């Protein structure tokens, strides 16, 4: 490899590109600290005066924190359910080759491209009969299924990194298959599985469509549904809408920073390289 001087020119170009691409987000965060009147009248990109009035308004006169609590609760439940299915599923796909498993594997691929709307219609009728509309359990179940392909493939790619010899050594020392899995494989894949569960959490936390169908009262709504209602009601009160969106985005960004380094060698490269 030839040694070369750092390419600061590329860095400069990239800085510009990154700024342009992030303009909507940056402007949204800046605007959330201005009154709606200021947003509309201002002629410069940089805000003149900052205020937290929008955030105070969210806390005092909107059910924002109810929505937040619902969102977090649903996403935790969905992540737990997906993980409970993906860990054994991913492990089986990583270690065994049987006809049933290849059927399962292609079924996962089918779920990945299945139009959600097609599943939502019968599910809505079914859940209505079971009294699950406006019940967090309904979205948790649907999210767990929707997450399953991604989460299983990602879990599988972590199990693939654990050498089979470790379990074989355990089996010789008197473990059975289950204790070999729980005592040897699971502790080693801990960090990877933590990343998997954070992804499952994020997908559920960010989701709008399913929540919009199943959660219809204010007590059960999640953030995207709630903010969307808010946007229809106060369509001109951009300050508060942007404050709500900014707050909603914070957990997503923070959690993503924790797991972003897993993303390249995780599911995407795995799924794409086959």
């Amino acid at each position, binding site marked *: 490899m030839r040694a070369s001087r750092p390419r600061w020119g590329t860095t400069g170009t990239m*800085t510009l590109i990154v700024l342009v691409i992030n303009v909507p987000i940056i402007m949204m965060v800046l605007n959330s600290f201005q009154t709606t009147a200021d947003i509309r009248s201002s002629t410069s990109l940089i805000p003149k005066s900052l205020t937290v009035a929008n955030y105070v308004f969210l806390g005092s006169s909107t059910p924002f924190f109810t929505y937040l609590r619902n969102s977090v609760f649903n996403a935790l439940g969905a992540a737990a359910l997906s993980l409970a299915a993906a860990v054994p599923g991913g492990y089986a796909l990583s270690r065994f080759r049987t006809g049933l498993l290849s059927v399962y594997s292609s079924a996962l691929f089918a779920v990945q491209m299945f139009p*959600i709307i097609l599943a939502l219609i019968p599910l809505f009728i079914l859940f209505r009969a079971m009294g699950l509309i406006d019940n967090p359990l309904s979205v948790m179940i649907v999210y767990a299924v929707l997450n399953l392909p991604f989460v299983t493939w990602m879990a599988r790619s972590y199990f693939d990194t654990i050498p089979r010899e470790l379990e074989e050594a355990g089996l010789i020392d008197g473990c059975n298959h289950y204790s070999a899995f729980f005592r040897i494989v699971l502790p080693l894949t801990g960090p990877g599985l933590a990343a998997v569960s954070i992804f499952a959490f994020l997908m559920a936390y960010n989701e709008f469509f399913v929540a919009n169908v199943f959660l219809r009262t204010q007590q059960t709504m999640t953030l995207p549904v709630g903010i969307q209602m808010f946007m229809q009601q106060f369509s001109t009160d951009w300050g508060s809408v942007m404050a709500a*969106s900014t707050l909603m985005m914070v957990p997503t960004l923070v959690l993503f920073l924790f797991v972003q380094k897993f993303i390249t060698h995780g599911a995407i*490269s795995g799924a794409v390289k086959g």
Partner: protein
Amino acid sequence: MGNYGRLLQDRSFWHSLSFSAIFALSNVVGCYFLGLGLALMLQRDFPGRGLFRVLLLTPWIVPSLVAVVSWRWMVSDNGALANKIIAAFGGDPIYFLSNGNWTIVIVILIKIWVSFPFMMLSLLAALQAVDRSLYEAAEIDGATRWQAFMHVTMPEIRGVSIVLCILMTIWTVNDFDTPWLLARGGPANATENLVVLAYRHTFARNDVGMGATVSFVTLFILMALFLIVMRLTRGGHNAR
């Protein structure tokens, strides 16, 4: 079967079908080339590369609601950012969200903005898997950078590109969030894609039968598309 007959005579169905096609095609083309361009830049070695890679992912990781909110205020009315910029250049304000064609443009732009980071990451992984020695061989043979790109890079990432474009087509056709959150499929039904139409039938008009019919047609179209692409590409060399 009556529903299928009704559907074929329904003008809003044909409109949704063509909008879905335009939406998917523009998004796939747009986010593929944007993603590929950025992946090629990120593949080079320069200071701050890892940081830029993360910062370019924000449109993809923020919730769809946040993405649409952040765009919607920029185009919402004549006092919005886009119109302030137009006014600064002396133009007349454009009512982006009450003109059907403009709303279609905005929906496509938002979708490209949300989708390109996935393309970029996946193509970057594919680019990094290309054998370095191929480039060295090309250099020895006197290939220009453009020739090396066309004859080494592109054939090497062809399989991945096809898979990515199929996935992106499916995801775009199945997208509900972007058109619904931006304008509820409006104005009129300009940005009503097949999924929004099915949702309307089922949950607003209480016509579950028509809703299911539209969603089944969507599924058939996607499956047909998938099979055709698979058949066409099997002739060439396989996806890596």
